[in-house]
């Protein structure tokens, strides 16, 4: 550095700086101007770093859908505008939650379930679209995802802290519940009437609701003109655009054996949903064995096998949510076959493996995959 400055000094002298009184005066002015410019640039750079190139940031957390919901907005809009957009986003989420939850007696889904085997029920446009999407994903996955799994989830009560199951259901109970499962017995009419043809059937949108709601929230933000946002519905992540600085968002994938928030790996995405289904997240332990809350609709029992989690990356959060559940039921090999027929859908599988640490399998389209924990 000193050599460079000495060389610059020598060059300045050779060019006349400091050779005469007039020259010395010019050198002083030049030096003062250079230093002022340096500090002005440093100050502007620092302010831009802190403020994010004129971007305003607003984020909010709220408890809804039986989980924590976080929305972060990055935009050139004013902070007041962003607060209003957040108000609208959370109001939308609350409204959809009250329509899609089977546990809220006045929800559209609860009313449909209460009228199963009797009559079609008129539901909201949004509920109709959510049920239609779930039926389409039932067909796409060959029944590995089934929105009419309700009788089975109600039988097992996994994750119900107030009324936990203390013994395994017997085969007869499971068979009775399975007889009421089958999305081919559910219909949605063009005028938004949902009908379950067998009495006792129950729609449970738990495997798709968060994805559907985050898709609706993402559409709301896009319509509001938000360029960059992160929507996190209890671990179901939807990115809108890129980070404010133009780089992709970096999303971690939960390590199955470690504390919540500790990732096993991370990936980079822009404008995509990253949604995970994992056996570690919610389960019941009976006689020393853990039974996860993800069910195989063909057996009526919690999924078994080597898979610990499946993360799906896609532009459509609704599909991503259902597919992550379906892949858990299908297992790795069958999931790979299905993935080949799904352009634009990528996945990361975390399995038990043979060592102490889980193994990762990722489709070739996953970008920026970085293993964090070993």
């Amino acid at each position, binding site marked *: *550095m*000193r050599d460079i*400055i*000495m060389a610059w*000094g020598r060059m300045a002298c050779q060019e006349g700086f400091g050779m005469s009184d007039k020259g010395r005066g010019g050198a002083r002015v030049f*030096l003062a101007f250079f*230093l002022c410019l*340096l*500090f002005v640039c*440093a*100050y502007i*750079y*620092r302010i831009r*770093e*802190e*403020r*994010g190139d004129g*971007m305003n*940031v607003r984020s909010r*957390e*709220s*408890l809804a859908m*039986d*989980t*924590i919901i*976080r929305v972060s907005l990055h935009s050139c809009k004013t902070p007041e505008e962003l607060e209003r957009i957040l108000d609208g986003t959370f109001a939308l989420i609350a409204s959809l939650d009250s329509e899609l939850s089977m546990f809220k007696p006045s929800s559209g889904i609860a009313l449909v379930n209460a009228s199963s085997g009797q009559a079609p029920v008129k539901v909201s446009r949004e509920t109709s679209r959510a049920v239609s999407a779930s039926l389409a994903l039932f067909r796409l996955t060959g029944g590995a995802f089934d929105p009419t799994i309700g009788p089975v989830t109600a039988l097992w009560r996994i994750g119900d*802290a*107030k009324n936990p199951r203390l013994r395994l259901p017997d085969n007869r109970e499971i068979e009775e519940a399975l007889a009421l499962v089958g999305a081919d017995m559910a219909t949605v009419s063009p005028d938004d009437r949902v009908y379950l043809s067998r009495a006792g059937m129950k729609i449970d949108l738990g495997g798709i609701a968060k994805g559907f709601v985050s898709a609706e929230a993402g559409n709301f933000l896009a319509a509001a003109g938000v360029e960059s946002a*992160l929507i*996190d519905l209890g*671990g*179901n*992540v939807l*990115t809108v655009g890129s*980070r404010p*600085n133009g*780089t992709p*968002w*970096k*999303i*971690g*994938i*939960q390590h199955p054996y*470690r*504390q*919540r*928030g*500790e*990732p096993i790996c*991370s990936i980079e995405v822009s404008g995509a949903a*990253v*949604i*995970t289904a*994992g056996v570690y*997240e919610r389960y019941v332990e009976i006689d020393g064995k853990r039974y996860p809350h993800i069910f195989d609709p063909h057996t009526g029992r919690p999924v078994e096998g080597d898979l610990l*989690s499946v*993360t799906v990356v896609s532009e459509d959060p609704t599909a991503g949510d259902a597919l992550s559940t379906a892949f858990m039921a299908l297992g790795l090999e069958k999931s790979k076959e299905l993935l080949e027929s799904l352009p634009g859908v990528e996945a990361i599988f975390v399995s038990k493996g043979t060592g102490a640490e889980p193994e990762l399998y990722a489709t070739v389209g996953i970008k920026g995959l970085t293993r964090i924990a070993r």
Partner: protein
Amino acid sequence: MKQKDKRLYLILFLLIAAAAFLTSGRRGGNGDLSLEISVDGRVTRSLALSDTAPGTSIMLRPGGGMNELVISGDSVRMVSADCPGGDCLKMAPLTSERGVIVCLPHKLVLKLRAKDGRKPSNPDDAIDAVTY
């Protein structure tokens, strides 16, 4: 010392000062972070980490329940709770604005917030969210 050397030392000093100004506060721990405690959507308490002695234990009674958290310098962790399931005890300690600790049965949310008006520190290699 010659006049020319003085100028060179002055320039060097100013260059170093400018570099220090640019980088100061970018990786400077959690001096600008405060812990925000919310119960049922309302912020009930906020305290600056820099004003809290390491090892400080805080007992909370959200909605009649009990949660105990410990502030250890630059991190906050939940150490005990009487909620069913105890999921909040399985959550990683808070070390930045990106994390959150939630106790759903008690409707309790712990979050670190950056100083007002300051952009959350988010270097390019930082993780924005974790899917689970």
